[in-house]
């Protein structure tokens, strides 16, 4: 029993008793693994390689050593883009987590009204990011004027897209508008798994609902929160369509986040080697944050989160 998969941990002993009769050969997984490797893992390696190259997209890439990387660390545009990415990610997390948590826990109840509202909340997730970005671009268009009608009501300047802070907040809001249903569902699923007895015991002890929320619901949802947060962070680090369609990185370069900078460098000025360096930096940041989150929330969390899937 020394090498069961983590997947089957809890049922491993029972499996061992049955033996290996009728188990599929591991080779069945090969086509899938190879396919995934060719289009996802190996390109990741090539990206690292290209980050040491000069490549214009037409001729063959030529190795230039650390040129791209030393340029990266001195490039103030990269610095700004990294900062804006971090800022956008933080804003998105702060905006989405409490709302998704509240909506999710609320939607975990099985009343009909909640089910109906949940079905409506889900709709934005069906739209493509392209469609959503275009929709909000239109809503915020000064000629069209929806924002002129609603803006004063909710305290939003009709020319919100013209200001640096405003544009970044809009991008964060539009991302939240789209992905909130996804995170709400994650929390809803998590909340439904919380054992009822915990609440019963707490009620007997005289704990009120607010106490129950903070002492049972929140702690019980910590693995759910890790999953949701990792997905949220990786997601908002990679907002790209929204920026391309709504702001083109502007005003000026004030919403030029890392993926957009990479796109501009790679596919508008065809400096693909440098773009690969930016992309590599993006992966390092995304993976780093995910790993830190997983560690912080306890070593076993990914495993038990996975058990529910």
């Amino acid at each position, binding site marked *: 029993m020394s090498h069961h998969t983590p997947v089957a941990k809890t049922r491993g002993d029972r499996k061992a008793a049955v033996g290996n009769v009728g188990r599929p050969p591991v080779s069945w997984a090969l086509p899938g693994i190879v396919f995934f490797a060719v289009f996802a893992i190996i390109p990741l390696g090539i990206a690292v390689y290209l980050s040491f190259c000069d490549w214009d*997209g037409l001729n063959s890439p030529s190795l230039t050593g650390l040129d791209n990387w030393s340029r990266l660390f001195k490039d103030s545009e990269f610095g700004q883009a990294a900062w804006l990415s971090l800022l956008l990610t933080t804003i998105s997390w702060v905006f989405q987590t409490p709302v998704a948590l509240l909506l999710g826990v609320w939607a975990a109840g099985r009343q009909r009204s909640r089910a109906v509202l949940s079905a409506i*909340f889900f709709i*934005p997730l069906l739209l493509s990011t392209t469609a959503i970005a275009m929709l909000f671009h239109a809503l915020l268009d000064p000629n069209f004027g929806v924002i002129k009608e609603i803006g004063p009501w909710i305290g939003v300047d009709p020319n919100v897209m013209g200001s640096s802070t405003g544009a970044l907040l809009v991008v964060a809001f539009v991302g939240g508008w789209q992905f909130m249903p996804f995170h709400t569902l994650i929390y809803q699923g998590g909340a439904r798994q919380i054992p009822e007895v915990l609440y019963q015991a707490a009620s007997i002890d005289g704990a009120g609902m607010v106490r129950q929320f903070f002492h049972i619901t929140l702690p019980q949802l910590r693995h*759910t929160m890790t999953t949701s947060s990792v997905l949220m962070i990786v997601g908002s680090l990679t907002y790209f369509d929204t920026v391309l369609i709504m702001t083109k990185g502007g005003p000026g370069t004030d919403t030029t986040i890392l993926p957009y900078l990479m796109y501009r460098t790679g596919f508008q000025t065809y400096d693909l080697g440098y773009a690969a360096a930016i992309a590599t930096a*993006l992966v390092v940041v995304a993976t780093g944050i995910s790993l830190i989150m997983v560690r912080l929330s306890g070593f076993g969390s990914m495993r038990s989160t996975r058990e*529910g899937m």
Partner: protein
Amino acid sequence: MSTDTRPAAPRQRSAPAPRPGRGPARRRKPFGNPVAGVGSLIWLVIVLVPLYTLVSASLMRQDQALNGDPLAIPTDPTLENYNTVLDSGFLTLLGNTAIVAVVTVVLVLVFSVPVAYVAVRTRSRLSSLAFRTFLLGVAIPAQAVIVPLYLLIGKMGLYDTLWAIILPTAAFAMPVAVLVLSGTMRDVSEEMYEAMSLDGASPVRMLWQLAVPLSRAGISTVAIFSALQAWNGFLFPLILTQSEENRVLTLGLFNFMTQFGVNIPAVLAAIVLSVVPIFAVYLVARRALVNGLMGVGGK
């Protein structure tokens, strides 16, 4: 997952963990109603106002949309904007997108089902390693590999073909597919496998006659989820295709935005038309999609 009908596997939690039945509604009343209830109504407004404007303004004549109150009900509803969109090559976009979505779903299922089955049914280090790789794959952003994919797809001679969109899209849908599928397959009880193996069933038969039929829920979730990814993907088409004949919906929408310019009602009509097919699927298969996504956060 709603398909899990057995008690949760024992974990580090001390509670005996019975399945929460129909109960949770009642227990959250005092907290849920005032705070989250009001919050959910606010969110309802935030969700509905843009959607309402999308549909209503797409039915307006351009002058009403631009000069009148855009939130008003269209005084003189017209389908003119929809005709404009349909006359601008919309059906080609729709056809291409449908091909991309269908082929992507087939590829994802063909490649992911065996991986998930092996991950659940074997205990070798290799399968555990493969499973972990897919798990990490969830965190690989598509942007990270777009430059090398541009190189790779070019070398394969697939640049500006629908395959250039399909292959990476399918690969990037695989991590979630494997996770969801292995989750549902793990819910197939060990006893059933044992019974089949006593009958001398081969692994192939167990997969086809036991694991696949009992994982229908997971399989439909994966199918819908991958189709949605393919339907809504933007980066791969943007970078890896070029010509009009291989254009898909998202890229077409983006083009309409420049083509129609200030004709905002036409832009909105194009958005509505692009959503209709997905919306139809949602109405039919809401449960599979929602339950699958909900499972991501379970436990």
